[in-house]
């Protein structure tokens, strides 16, 4: 099984196709299987060399006790890029994967050709997302967590560390509830992260302030679900990044790749082709 080592830590990855590099980043508590489940790699491999890997602490990659901020994981991204001999890359990142992608553009601008930010919200822009309870999906999310024996509140919705800790400490009578709702594998995933600093790290600004977010001039697509809870962030990116435009996935919320996979894959393919066309034509948008 393909693994790449950076500084002694092994990451699981898959790669397909040839051409300019595209790297896919999943979100926290996910893994790279989200992409094969929607046939993303073979689709994009028609035009690009596509690499998808498991973030540290996720899937078949190693789980160090710490180092889960977006700055740390942006470092992983460029080290993996170097170890695999990838060129300047387009990065598609979902949720926290989008935070990592944008942080990489800030810290390692030469490594990045363009960004597709799929429904991220940023710790540095948390002030924008104050009314999550007004989001139509909130109640649904809360109810699902309740059925799994977990409690979430509107005040600390961003605190995934609390979910990790709750899962790791579930009383035995609630194990069956959790397993029935989210599956045994989810319990392993969350419990594994409870033993790390991941929960605290992913809510840390880690240097990715509003000002630094706004400084990004790479060609960027803010790809959000039409009914995403994070549309305030989407509009902020559009208004403040020099070269950013919005694309909305119809009939989708935060997890557009699962909620409307056909539209999501087709849109990503089209957007990547457009980014490449613009790059080859020498178009640099607002940065010119």
């Amino acid at each position, binding site marked *: 099984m393909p693994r790449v080592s950076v500084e002694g830590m092994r990451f699981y990855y*898959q790669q397909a196709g040839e051409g300019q590099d595209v790297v896919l980043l999943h979100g926290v508590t996910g*893994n790279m299987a989200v992409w*094969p489940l*929607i*046939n993303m790699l*073979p689709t994009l491999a028609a035009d690009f060399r596509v690499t998808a890997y498991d973030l540290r602490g996720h899937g078949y990659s190693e789980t160090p006790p710490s180092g889960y901020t977006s700055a740390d994981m942006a470092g992983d991204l460029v080290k993996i890029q170097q170890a695999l001999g990838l060129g300047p890359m387009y990065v598609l990142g979902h949720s926290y994967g989008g935070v990592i992608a944008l942080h990489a553009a800030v810290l390692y601008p030469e490594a990045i050709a363009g960004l597709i930010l799929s429904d991220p919200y940023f710790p540095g822009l948390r002030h924008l997302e104050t009314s999550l309870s007004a989001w139509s999906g909130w109640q649904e999310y809360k109810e699902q967590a309740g059925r799994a024996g977990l409690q979430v509140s509107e005040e600390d919705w961003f605190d995934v560390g609390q979910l990790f800790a709750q899962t790791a400490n579930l009383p035995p009578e609630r194990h069956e509830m959790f397993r029935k709702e989210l*599956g045994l*594998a989810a319990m392993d995933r969350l419990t594994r992260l409870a033993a790390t600093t991941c929960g605290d790290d992913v809510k840390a600004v880690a240097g990715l302030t509003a000002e630094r977010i706004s400084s990004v001039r790479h060609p960027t697509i803010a790809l959000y679900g039409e009914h995403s809870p994070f549309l305030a962030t989407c509009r902020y990116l559009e208004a403040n990044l020099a070269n950013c435009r919005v694309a909305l996935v119809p009939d989708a919320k935060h997890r557009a790749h699962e909620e409307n996979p056909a539209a999501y894959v087709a849109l990503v393919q089209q957007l990547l082709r457009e980014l490449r066309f613009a790059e080859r034509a020498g178009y640099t948008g607002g940065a010119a």
Partner: protein
Amino acid sequence: MTITTEQIHSDVAGILRNFNGREYSGDIGPETCFFADLGLASIDAVVLGETLEEHYGRKIPFHLFMADLGRRAVRDIKLGELVAFLHQHLSA
């Protein structure tokens, strides 16, 4: 060389009996569900695909199997379905 479904079932069951450090001592039959019974996850299915390619020493279009899994309302795989998929591609 032809390979029978019985042989493939035996191979896959053998691999899943101790899959990447997770042992399973219960019965493994055609109706055994990958996620509900074995407690595995979709990322395990991805890795299983590579393990099977190594085992049989040839490429298997496992991405078709993953995409099919992704389209299911109830996301689980019966071992018998995996065996049928493998038989189709290994005897092609």
